[in-house]
């Protein structure tokens, strides 16, 4: 018993430098005795499973399974040798096998047999080293990203956007959406050509716009790209009281504060406006000439589903001297606060239809 323990310790001390230097790679040629080498492949797997496989551990210690061999020796041989060797047949045979094999290895290669007492500092073999490019593994990449405080790479592809990107989503390369706006509007207008009196009244505003969102700023995450900022053309129709319709064409921007479907967003849009129709003196909807006006709003939203918006609109006047009194257009405008959402969602569209209907009941302060 004492002899076995001593041999184990001796073998372990001799092996230690080799194990510490190359824990998972094949041992140097000098430490790889032919006989041991042949047995390592067959016995090494068993070494890590039970102390009774200490022979394998011993042989593996001289070859590629150095770590496994050291572990087996440490658990079955060195510490437990006094007890396990006496109580467990397998353990009892293990040291003998170690000694014999180690001795043979020493004889064959003139190198001290390879066994360590316990490879406490030796890392577990996680995965084999690639023998062909790339020589780095996934674990290497994880370690590298951790070293530089980079977020781990996504292991799964990004979720799929709904409705074929008819609802804006950071995963969409670009998307086209139809938004409906329902808003309270505080309207003002210069009411009389002979005075600077201004009419003010409360009204409603509904708006339907087609947005084409092109990626303006893209964030790459692993192999996947997410839109951080989208910018693109938009156009549509604005409706308010007195059967007044405006066309508008402009730009819309949306900044995403996250990559989720419901990530908060900041929306900015502005457009040139032109009046299409209004109520004539007979109370019938009729076309209406118009100089170009401007509208702009800012919105705070959740994903591509909807946003609370606040904005304003200004209708520039047409009051040249050569234009007859009846044909003149006086300056007007509005401030509005409301909700803008994708019509795919349903509720924004219904709300806009309701706002359109209700706003027609409003009696304006002055006829536009």
């Amino acid at each position, binding site marked *: 018993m004492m002899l076995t323990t001593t041999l184990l310790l001796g073998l372990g001390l001799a092996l230690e430098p080799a194990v510490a230097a190359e824990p998972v790679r094949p041992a140097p040629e000098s430490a790889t005795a032919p006989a041991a080498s042949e047995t390592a492949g067959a016995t090494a797997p068993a070494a890590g499973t039970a102390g009774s496989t200490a022979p394998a551990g011993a042989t593996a210690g001289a070859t590629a399974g150095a770590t496994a061999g050291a572990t087996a020796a440490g658990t079955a041989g060195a510490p437990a040798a006094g007890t396990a060797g006496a109580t467990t047949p397998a353990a009892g045979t293990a040291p003998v096998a170690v000694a014999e094999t180690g001795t043979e290895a020493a004889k064959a290669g003139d190198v001290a047999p390879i066994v360590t007492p316990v490879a406490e500092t030796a890392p577990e073999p996680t995965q084999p080293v690639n023998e062909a490019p790339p020589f780095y593994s996934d674990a290497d990449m994880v370690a590298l990203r951790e070293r530089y405080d980079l977020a781990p790479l996504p292991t799964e592809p990004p979720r799929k956007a709904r409705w074929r990107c008819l609802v804006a989503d950071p995963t969409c390369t670009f998307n*086209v959406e*139809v938004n*409906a706006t329902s808003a309270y509007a505080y309207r003002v207008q210069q009411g009389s050509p002979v005075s600077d009196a201004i009419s003010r009244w409360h009204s409603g505003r*509904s708006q*339907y716009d*087609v947005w*084409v969102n092109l990626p303006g700023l893209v964030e790459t995450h692993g192999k996947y790209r997410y839109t951080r900022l989208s910018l693109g*053309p938009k*156009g*549509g*129709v604005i*409706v308010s009281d007195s*059967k007044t*319709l405006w*066309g508008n*064409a402009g730009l819309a921007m949306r900044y995403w504060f996250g990559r989720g479907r419901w990530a908060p967003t900041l929306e900015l849009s502005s457009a040139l406006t*032109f*009046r*299409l129709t209004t*109520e*004539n003196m007979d109370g019938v*909807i*009729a*076309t*209406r*000439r*118009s*100089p*170009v006006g401007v509208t702009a709003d800012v919105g705070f939203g959740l994903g591509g589903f909807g946003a609370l918006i606040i904005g304003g609109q200004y209708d520039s006047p*047409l009051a*040249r001297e*050569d*234009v*007859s009194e*009846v*044909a003149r257009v006086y300056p007007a405008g509005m401030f509005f606060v409301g909700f803008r959402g994708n*019509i795919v969602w349903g509720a924004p*569209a219904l709300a*806009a*239809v*309701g*706002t*359109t*209907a*209700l*706003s*027609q*009941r409003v009696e304006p302060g002055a006829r536009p």
Partner: protein
Amino acid sequence: MIAGDRGVDLPMTQFSFRGGFTVRPVTLLRKRWHPWSVGLTSSFVRSSGTVASSTSTIGSANPDLIDVPSTDGVRVALLNQIWLSQKRHAFHLDLSLGVVRSTVLSSTTRLVGTHADVAVGVGGWGALFVAGDFLDRDTRLTFGFRGHGIAAAPVVTLIALGLLAGGAL
């Protein structure tokens, strides 16, 4: 915009409904992709009215101007499209040349003039255009956008529904 001595130059707004078809002759004949397609379009257009006179306003201190409520027209044009790539939503240039039949100034008589339209579109879904109607003493230049019926129909429907519910139509 009116150019002439029968009225004043004014900004105007208009909307139109356009339909038509296009074919790709080279693609069909040679069985390979080709950027050119040709077609025929027809449209109805309603513009805001003019402020015009039936006689010349030159030298008149107080011309008899009429505020026309609206101006309607019908256009027929030959459309040439150049697709800039084979992508599904590729950009394309649209060049239209044809005729327009419309009332002019304060007259209710429909005259025939020339219509031209240059547009930049995206996959047939929508386009920004510059168009002109050139009639006798009446030239109209417009800049605007148009959308495919699939994209525009929901918007038009929702607006009409709202106006109907509100009793505006």
